[in-house]
C-alpha cells in the first residue's frame, strides 16, 4: 500500500534528485526526525547541503525562501502545523504574492509552502485548524490541496498527490500554498484498481482557460470525479477536497447502497484561484449541489463555489447546500471535536434532505 505520506516524500526526493535548485527550509527537518509529520524524511541525509533546519521563526524562514526564489532557486518551505500559517501572513500576502505583479512581471517567485491542516487528532484549538480559507482570494497565490486520488489525465497533468507536489515545485514559476490534511498522511492512494465500487475520472485542465490566465503559470492541478460503479445517472453533486473527499466518498457509497441516492463526487485539487468548472458542469447535470469542507462554514471555500454555481446555473440549480466545520474553535475533547467537524453521518443526512 502506498500512502499519501509515501507519495509526498517520494515526490520531494525526486524533485531534489532532478533539480539542484530545490531547497527545503523549515523546522526540525533533520534525520532521523525528518520533520514533525515525516514528509521530509531522508532528505537531510541525501542532500545535507540543501536542507536547512531553522529556528522557530516561521515568518523569517518563509521570507528567506522568498529571497531564494527571487534569486533563481526553488525552495520548498515546510510549516510544521497549518495553524502557523497565521505567522507567515505578511510574507505571503504583502511580499510573495505581490512581487511578480507589482514589479510588472519582471520577476518570478517559484516557491512552495507545504503545511498540514486539519483536526480529528485531539490537538486542540491551535493545532487542528483548517485555515487555508484565509488565503483563498489572494491574487498571485495559488492554493492546492492534496487528496488520496490518483488517475491519469491528458497531457502531462499530475495524476496524484505526489505528482501534484512535484509539479508545483518544479513546473510552477509562481508561489503555491500546498495543503496536506494530517489524516491523509496514513491514508492509501486510491486509483481505478483500488476502488472497485467507484469509477474515477481526471477532468482535463481546459486549454482555453489557460490562455487567458497566463499571468500565473498555466493550470495543472487536476479535478477528479467519482461515481458509483454501474449506478444510474447521478441526481446530486457532492464537492469536497482534501480529507473531506475521503469522507464524502464513504458517504457517496452509503447514500447509494443504503438510500438509493446516487451522487457524483467532484474533488478539485486547486482551491485558489477557484476552479469551479467541473463542479458546475456536474451540478448542471444533476441539479443539486452539496459543498463540503472541514474549515469553518462562514465565508469559506464552499460559499465561493456555491455562489459560482448559482451565478452560472441560476434556476437550473434546484438545491444547493454547504456542510462545513462549525464556526467555533476546534476543541481537544474527542466527542466535542467530532461535534464541531463534519463527518460521514452529517454528509449522508444533509444529502438525504436535498432529494
Amino acid at each position, binding site marked *: 500500500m502506498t500512502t499519501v505520506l509515501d507519495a509526498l516524500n517520494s515526490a520531494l526526493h525526486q524533485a531534489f534528485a532532478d533539480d539542484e535548485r530545490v531547497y527545503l527550509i523549515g523546522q526540525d527537518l533533520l534525520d532521523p526526525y525528518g520533520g514533525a509529520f515525516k514528509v521530509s524524511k531522508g532528505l537531510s541525509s541525501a542532500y545535507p547541503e540543501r536542507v536547512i533546519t531553522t529556528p522557530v521563526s516561521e515568518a*523569517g524562514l518563509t521570507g528567506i525562501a522568498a529571497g531564494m526564489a527571487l534569486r533563481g532557486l526553488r525552495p520548498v518551505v515546510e510549516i510544521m502545523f497549518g495553524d502557523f500559517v497565521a505567522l507567515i501572513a*505578511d510574507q505571503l500576502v504583502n511580499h510573495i504574492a505581490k512581487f511578480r505583479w507589482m514589479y510588472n512581471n519582471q520577476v518570478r517567485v517559484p516557491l512552495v509552502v507545504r503545511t498540514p491542516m486539519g483536526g480529528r487528532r485531539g490537538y486542540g484549538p491551535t493545532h487542528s485548524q483548517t485555515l487555508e480559507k484565509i488565503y483563498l482570494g489572494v491574487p498571485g497565490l495559488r492554493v492546492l490541496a492534496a487528496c488520496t486520488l490518483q488517475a491519469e489525465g491528458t497531457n502531462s497533468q499530475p495524476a496524484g498527490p505526489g505528482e501534484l507536489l512535484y509539479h508545483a515545485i518544479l513546473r510552477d514559476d509562481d508561489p503555491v500554498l500546498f495543503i496536506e490534511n494530517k489524516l491523509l498522511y496514513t491514508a492509501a492512494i486510491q486509483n481505478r484498481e483500488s476502488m472497485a465500487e467507484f469509477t474515477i475520472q481526471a477532468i482535463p485542465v481546459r486549454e482555453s482557460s489557460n490562455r487567458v490566465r497566463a499571468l500565473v503559470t498555466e493550470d495543472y492541478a487536476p479535478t477528479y470525479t467519482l461515481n458509483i460503479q454501474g449506478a444510474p445517472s447521478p441526481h446530486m453533486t457532492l464537492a469536497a477536497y482534501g480529507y473531506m473527499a475521503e469522507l464524502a466518498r464513504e458517504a457517496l457509497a452509503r447514500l447509494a447502497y443504503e438510500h438509493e441516492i446516487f451522487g457524483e463526487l467532484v474533488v478539485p485539487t486547486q482551491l485558489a484561484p477557484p476552479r469551479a468548472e467541473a463542479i458546475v458542469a456536474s451540478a448542471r447535470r444533476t441539479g443539486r449541489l452539496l459543498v463540503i469542507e472541514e474549515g469553518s462554514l462562514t465565508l469559506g471555500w464552499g460559499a465561493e463555489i456555491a455562489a459560482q454555481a448559482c451565478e452560472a446555473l441560476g434556476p437550473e440549480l434546484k438545491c444547493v447546500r454547504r456542510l462545513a466545520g462549525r464556526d467555533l474553535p476546534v476543541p481537544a475533547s474527542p466527542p466535542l471535536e467530532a461535534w464541531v467537524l463534519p463527518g460521514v453521518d452529517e454528509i449522508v443526512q444533509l444529502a438525504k434532505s436535498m432529494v
Partner: protein
Amino acid sequence: MAREYEVLYRSMYRIRCFEETVLDNFRRGLFSGTTHTYIGQEANAVGVLSNLLENDIVFSNHRGHGHYLAYGGDLRALFAELMGRASGVCGGRGGSQHLHYKNFYSNGVQGGILPIATGMALAEKFKGSGAVTVVFLGDGTLGEGVVYEALNMAALWGAPILFVLENNRIAQTTPIELAVAGNIPARFTAFGIPNRELDSSDVLEITPLAKACLEEVRKSSTPRGLTLHTFRFGPHSKGDDSRPVEVIERLRRERDPLMIHASRLPAAARKQIEAEVEVEVMTAFQQAQADPYPTPSEGTQRAEAEAKSIV
C-alpha cells in the same frame, strides 16, 4: 580625487533635486498616491552604494528613491512610476514604494524585507556568485519582530549581507525615544554580527566606512551591520512633519550632506554640476509628464481573469 568628489556631489544633488521636484509638484497635483522623501539622508545612499559591484543586490524600503537613484536607476522611469505612467520603473503598478530594476528591489511594508534580503544573500552564496546584498532599514523598523528572526538566521548561516540601519531618529511622527529601548548596535552584536556606527552626514566619512563593511562581508561571507545616525529634513510623507520648524532649520544648517560636501568643490565646478543636474532632472520630469498612462492591458486583464474562475 577632485573628480571623485564631483561624482559624489552630483549623485547626492540628483537625489535632492529629484525629491524637491516631487514634493513641490505633489502640491500641484502632478503626482498621485504617496511618497517618502530622502532629503537630508543623501550621503547614506551615495556613500554606501558607491562601493557596490555590478552583481550586488540592494533591497530598499518605503524611503527608497535615494537608494534607487544612487544605485543607478533612471530618473525619468522613477518620475513616471510616481506619476503612475506606463514608462515607470514597474509600469506604474508599484508606485513610489515598490521598485524593481536590475538587482534593486524595494517594498513598502516594514520588517519583512529583511528575511527576504537575507534569503537573497544566501541564494547568491549557495550559487557561488560572489554577490553581496545590501538591505536598508530605519529605526522605526526595529519595532518589527521579524527583523530579529532575520538577524539570527543571517548570523547562523553566514549570509553575505550588509544591514544598513539609517537612524533618522523619527518614525513617521514618533521620536526614537518613544519607540526604541536599549541601544541599536547591541541589536546586531547580540546575534554575533559586528556593527560599525557613525553619526555624520559627511559622504567622505560614510563612503570609506561602508567600503570597509562591504569588504568584510565579501571576504568573510558573513553579515555585518552599519548604523548610520542621520536626519531627514522633510516630512515622513508629504505634509506630516510634526517637528518644530526651528529644529528642521537647525538640522539643515548643521547636518546637510550637500552643504558639507559642497565646500570641498571649487564654486565653478559645483555650480556647473548643479546646473547640469537641474536640467537633467527637469527634462526627466517633463518627459515623464508627457508619458502615457497604462491602460488595463492584457496582463492586467489576465490577472483579473485569474482571480475569477471562468465558468
